[in-house]
Structure formats: structure tokens, C-alpha cells
């Protein structure tokens, strides 16, 4: 096992105005070669754990360590944010520039790249996600699948060491979903993926974590999804 890149220990978090804590003692560890799938119901705390890792939510208790350094204050998270990419569940929450190129160049510019460097990085990243020539398209008018790929490109443009992906296959058509699996497989970085799409997790991850009621435990076994079609689906019946 290599040394951990990111590690969260005993994280507690409660949203203001709610009674039950969203996280109560959750742990998460990523190494530079992790491919970790996160399973759990809606509201079990998966997204909260991601937002805590990125320093967006401040845990009431628990420690976050990145590359051996404990992170506490807002400023401490800047290096982490430069090196860990976060893909939002809804691309509409992630993309806010008029054109694709603006959005992709945004991260590199924040990291201090020159406009010319940012442009060439953007062009490279677009070709990784298979959207060559999309530079001047209007982000708001892209299809759901295209938006997801632009969002991924905008994160990859920061040349991160790890990616956190929140429900990346929601709203994807099957072709884009397949393309995403291929792209992720080719990336040489750590992945941590929240998904309800077990088949997708099976194809992209090598270890799994169960999140339940705000706590985490490694999943020894992964539930698999099998889909079959059969006659008589229009008659009420049950499967076990």
C-alpha cells in the first residue's frame, strides 16, 4: 500500500437547523492509486463527506490530512483543491462560463497559468473527453451528456492527482456512459466515485466503501446489478 494522499478520520458534521448529524464518525482514505467506489442510499452522507474533504463544509470533529499535512483553515485547502478535482452531480452547478473554452481555462488561470498555456491545456483536455472543436460552443446549450464531459474536462484541465466524482452517470445516455468508463480507465490518477449505478462502479473501481447513516465501513462484497428482460412484465409479479 502506498502512503495515503488524502485521509479523513472520524469526521462529524451536522447541517444547521437539522436534528440528526449527516456524518458521525466517517473515514475515507485515498492513495495515489485508489479506485474507490462509494455506495449508500440518498441522504446517507456521501456528498457531505466529499464536501468535507474539499474544505467546503467544516466538520465539527475529525481530521483531514492531505499529503501528510493536516488541513484546518480555509487557506490550508488551497493546495488540495488545486490537486484534487471534484465533479459535481449536476453539471449545471459546475459550469458558469459563457463558452466551453472559458470554463475549461478557468481552473488553469486560477493556478497561475498564462492565457496561452490555458488555451493549449484546454484544447488538449477537450480532446481527452472527445469534444475536439467544442471550444466556442455555448455551455448552457449543450446536451446533458456534453455538459458532463465539459465539466470533466474543466476538472482535468487542472491536472489533478485525484478525482472525486459525485453520481457521474446520472442523466447520461448509454453511449456517453460507456465513453466515461473508457476515459476514466485511461486516466493515471486516483478516483473516488459516488454512484447508484453499481454496474458502473464495478467497471471503474477496485475497492468499495459503504456509507450508512453518516458512518463508513469498507465493503467486503459489492452488490451487483443484473438487468434482464422477460415477457409478462406488464403483469404484476414479484422477484426476490
Amino acid at each position, binding site marked *: 500500500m502506498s502512503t495515503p494522499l488524502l485521509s479523513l478520520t472520524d469526521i462529524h458534521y451536522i447541517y*444547521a*437547523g437539522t436534528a440528526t448529524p449527516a456524518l458521525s464518525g466517517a473515514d475515507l482514505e485515498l492513495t495515489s492509486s485508489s479506485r474507490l467506489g462509494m455506495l449508500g442510499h440518498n441522504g446517507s452522507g456521501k456528498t457531505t463527506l466529499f*464536501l468535507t474533504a*474539499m474544505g*467546503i463544509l467544516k466538520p465539527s470533529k475529525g481530521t483531514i490530512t492531505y499529503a501528510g499535512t493536516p488541513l484546518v483553515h480555509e487557506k490550508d485547502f*488551497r493546495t488540495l*483543491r*488545486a490537486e484534487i478535482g*471534484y465533479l*459535481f452531480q449536476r453539471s*449545471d*452547478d*459546475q*459550469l*458558469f*462560463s*459563457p463558452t466551453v473554452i*472559458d470554463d475549461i481555462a*478557468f*481552473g488553469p*488561470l*486560477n*493556478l497561475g497559468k498564462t492565457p496561452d498555456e490555458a488555451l493549449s491545456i484546454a484544447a488538449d483536455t477537450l480532446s481527452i473527453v472527445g469534444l475536439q472543436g467544442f471550444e466556442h460552443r455555448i455551455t*448552457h446549450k449543450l446536451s446533458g451528456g456534453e455538459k458532463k464531459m465539459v465539466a470533466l474536462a*474543466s*476538472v482535468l484541465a*487542472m491536472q489533478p492527482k485525484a478525482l472525486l466524482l459525485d453520481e457521474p452517470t446520472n442523466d447520461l445516455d448509454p453511449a456517453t456512459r460507456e465513453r466515461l468508463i473508457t476515459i476514466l480507465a485511461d486516466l493515471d490518477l486516483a478516483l473516488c466515485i459516488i454512484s447508484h449505478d453499481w454496474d458502473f462502479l464495478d467497471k471503474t473501481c477496485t475497492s468499495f466503501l459503504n456509507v450508512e447513516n453518516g458512518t463508513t465501513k469498507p465493503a467486503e462484497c459489492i452488490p451487483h446489478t443484473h438487468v434482464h428482460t422477460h415477457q409478462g412484465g406488464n403483469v404484476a409479479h414479484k422477484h426476490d
Partner: protein
Amino acid sequence: MTLESFAEGTSPLHSMDAAAKLVAATIFSVCTALLTTIEAACGALLIGLLLLGIAKLSARTLAKRLLFVNAFIAFLWLTLPVSTAGTPLYSWNGFTVTHEGIHIALLITLKSNAIVTAFIALLATSNITDIGTGLAKLRVPQKLSLLFLFTWRYLHVILEEYKRLSTAATLRGFVPGTNSHTYKTYANLIAMVLIKSHDRAERVSNAMKLRGFNGTFHTLYTRQSSPFDSISACIIALSGIALLAADHFQIMELL
């Protein structure tokens, strides 16, 4: 993020009908704004503080809020005493502080704080939804009261939308500073929020149409104010009017 800092509470002012409080606050504020003597303004401030006492609000939040309101007043204290003509009180380096200057600055301070304290005690103790309903009961044009209520309803949705976009910017290493990249980024965030808001407005309008809306809002509100509410509102309003009368006839001076 809770915007209604004072709306939660159990005091009699919290349970009073918003329409009655709106009337009381308006009459009291107008009367206080018309006061010209320090004595009457002190009286108004006392009433304001008394109301605050009844409302039992969090002292910390209250102090912060009053401090903020008094920032503008403090700014007037810097200029008014030296730029008002009148009897010199004190001179320094060519600046002359006048008696009249101090008087007017003091009067403004008292009046301003009187109105704000009464306003917080009366209106900040209602939630915005009740105030909007109160406005409708007071026969404020329906378009205005609905505009008020719908603005409040969607403020939260849009605030959340903005926060998610701004989180997205933070996560991609955005640190605001005084430079054109920062201003451009904020402008992009705002433009995106506006465009999404407009799209949302279209969906909401469709939702209204689908539930049979054809241009007329029907109202549910028929509730009358309780006698307790009306009497309390009258007392507050009358105290303001009494102060104004006292001020006008200079009763304080006669005493």
C-alpha cells in the same frame, strides 16, 4: 443561512398580527421622523427600547445590527458638528464645532435609533411570509404583495443556486482579489444565475398554467385581527402621535 435573524420567538410581539404591526410601525416611524426636540426624541427612543425589551431578542445579534445602523450616523457625526453654522463651542485647526451642529447630530442619532429599535421590535419579529400576507390584508395592490411574496419564495432557491456555482469556482482554485479576473468571474456567476433564474421562471409559469391559472390570483385570506392586536397597535401608534403633539406644542418646555 438564515436571513430572518429575529423572526423566531415567543414574545407577545412575535405572536401579534403582522398587519397590525405594520400599521403601528408606520405611524410610529412617521411621527418620530417629524420630531424636532431632543426631549421628544428621547421619549421616542425610550418607547423603542421598551418595545425591544418586550420582544426579548438575542442581545448579540441586536448589538451587531444596531452598530451597523449607527455606522451611517457616525459618519454624520464626523461632518455635521463642524459644517453647521452657529454658536462656536470648540475650535481646533480651523474646524469649529458648533452648538447647533451637536444638537442636530444628537437629534438625528436619537430619532434614527428610536425608529430602528421600534422597527426591529415590531417587524423583524414577523416572518416575511406573514408580513406579505399582512400587506395583502392592508389592501396593498395585489401585484405588489404577490411580487413581495414570490421574491421571498425564490430568494432562497436562487441563493442556493448561486452558492453552488460559487462553490464550483472555489473548488477550481478561485481566490477573489482586486483584479479583472475576479470581476469577470463574479460577472459570469451572476449572468449564469440570471439565465437559470429566467429558465426557472418559465418552468414555474408553466406550473401555474397547468393548475388552471389564467391571470387572476384568488386569495384565501379573510382572517381579522384580534382585539388584542388592534389595541396594541393603537397604543403604539398613539404614543407616537402623542410625542409628536408634545413636540409641536413644546409641552416639554412648558413643564
